[in-house]
């Protein structure tokens, strides 16, 4: 194999990689660039490569217009509040359950764990409708007193999503690889199980916490079908359902792109900073195969 041959093959490989990268990038670049253009120019530019370039009459006016159309700040707060609360509660309760399954000897733990893992095969879409009936009949005591029915609330978006098979599974896998001596030593020192969980095991959980948190974050922030059904009031709507304010006959594309950019770019930035952790958390869902 000559040098010239290998250089040509190298260039071809990079050309292929770049070409594919453009396929994945062009809609996202278009989204951000278009959010800066007035509608007329946006439509005119779409016929040429200008669609992907921030040229012409560039401003952030669309963001202001989008904010007038929809209570964006409220939606963003709702999404962040629901997502953050669910992620934190999920990490605590799922890691605690996994700790119990791995380190404690109790009757029935094998059966309970098997039941939990069996729910992997149940897609949320198949339980959404009966779950709607369940939450509509649950009681809640809030600041406004006692009421039946969780529709239009934060808890209806949070509590059903706290515990899931994948998060528990990730912790179980991680705990199984921890040295048993560590636990034994702490027991000999007279530590209670909860203390071992809190002070010995959890401080070692950095990697699995990051993985579980990222996966849960993506699921929660990108929720659509469930909040669509349980938040009729805009007070509780998350950003994805808020998109419906922009469904109309003559779509104001500049505003749409501004809203889409606003709810997407922070997540993309977060991803780019933590890309290694994001990608390894997706990969870790595959290890179980």
């Amino acid at each position, binding site marked *: 194999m000559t040098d010239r041959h290998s250089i040509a093959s190298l260039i071809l490989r990079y050309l292929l990689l770049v070409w*594919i990268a453009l396929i*994945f990038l062009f809609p996202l670049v278009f989204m951000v660039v278009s959010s800066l253009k007035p509608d007329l120019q946006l*439509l005119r530019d779409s*016929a040429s490569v200008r669609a992907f370039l921030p040229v012409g009459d560039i401003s952030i006016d669309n963001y202001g217009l989008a904010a007038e159309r929809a209570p964006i700040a409220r939606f963003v707060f709702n999404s962040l509040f629901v997502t953050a609360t669910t992620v934190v509660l999920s990490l605590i309760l799922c890691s605690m359950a996994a700790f119990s399954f791995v380190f*404690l000897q109790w009757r029935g733990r094998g059966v309970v764990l098997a039941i939990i893992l069996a729910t992997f095969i149940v897609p949320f879409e198949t339980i959404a409708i009966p779950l709607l*009936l369940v939450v509509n009949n649950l009681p809640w005591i809030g600041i406004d007193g006692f009421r039946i029915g969780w529709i239009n609330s934060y808890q209806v978006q949070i509590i*059903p999503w706290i515990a899931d098979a994948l998060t528990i599974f990730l912790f179980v896998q991680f705990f199984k690889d921890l040295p048993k001596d560590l636990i034994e030593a702490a027991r000999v020192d007279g530590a209670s199980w909860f203390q071992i969980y809190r002070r010995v095991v959890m401080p070692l959980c950095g990697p699995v916490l990051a993985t579980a948190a990222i996966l849960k974050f993506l699921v929660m922030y990108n929720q*659509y079908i469930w909040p669509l059904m349980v938040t009729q009031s805009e007070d509780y709507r998350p950003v994805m359902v808020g998109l419906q304010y922009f469904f109309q006959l003559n779509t104001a594309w500049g505003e*749409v792109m501004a809203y889409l950019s606003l709810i997407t770019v922070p997540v993309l930035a977060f991803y780019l900073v933590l890309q290694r952790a994001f990608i390894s958390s997706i990969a870790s869902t595959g290890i179980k*195969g």
Partner: protein
Amino acid sequence: MAAGPRGKQTLTGWAMASPAFLLMLLFLITPFFLAFGLSLTNQRLISPNPAEYVGARNFENLLGLSFFVLEPERDEAGEVIRDDDGAPEYPRLRTFTRNNPDYPHLDGMREWMSIGWTDDSRLVLLASDVVFMKALTNTILFVIVVAPMQAGIALLLALLINQKLRGITVFRVIYFMPVVVSIVVVAFLWRFIYDGQNGLLNSMLGFLSFGVFQPVDWLGNPNTALASIMAMSIWQGVGFHMIIWLAGLQTIPVSLYEAADIEGANRWQKFRYITWPGLRNTAVLVLVIITMQCFALFPQVDVMTRGGPLDSTQTMVFQAVQRGYERQDIAGGSAISVLLFVFVLAISLTQRWLTRDKD
């Protein structure tokens, strides 16, 4: 005696596991079994009357099918009546399906499709719920097309990204990017790309064909709408599966490839005899996950087409939400959910069986 600490462990064990388990019991396992029960009733979300057991009626209303041979109209001499173009004229189908005492089993059914039968008669396929039948076939079509394509493209990308090249991480990061973006955002964004007047896709195809290409209203045309949603879904989801394939690739020991090099194996042989066997477990996982994601097809349809045009993008989940949520018909929505689960289970088991250990 060991019973003391053991009994205490049982108590602590339950105490630590039960919060998560009880939540799953209430919000996942209960609704799962409720779906089966509710699908046999006439439960509504809010109703003054208690729900009643109705047997399999919800399923009959969804899945009822019947064939019917439609004979052309004949005059008194027994000759087929034809219109000006020579095509036979047929009686209106509704004369058989609306309160016709001779055809009680056809009552309320509508035409789904029909084909020419003998000479002048036509064979008509009737369905109790034509829209749901379209949703069912679209969903199955979506799974059959998207699952292998997405898995295949993802594997190619994973092989591409697994090369030892300078800067390969950059490409991996870019290919994965759409996965981080919500499918709802992607769907709204692609509405512009697919737009019939100003859409980017039409502009690009026009440019590439030097203006020969005629613009298409991709989402407004019943022939292209579902395919457009498929293409976009693959674009969004392929990076996810690329990463899972990649994780699988990296578990294959490098020494196997080195040995193959010494034996003088070519690239295809290395893929066929080392890579592919090493990826069998990954293949099962990728296919099961993609299948479940495909059956869950909803946000794309809700944002892009609302099931139209002409029901060409109806899906099972879209129908479940239409009934269970918008019409508050919990029983009807639950029946669809049960069917959905049966499909997911059947396909997962089949895939597991097809990719089983043959040793």
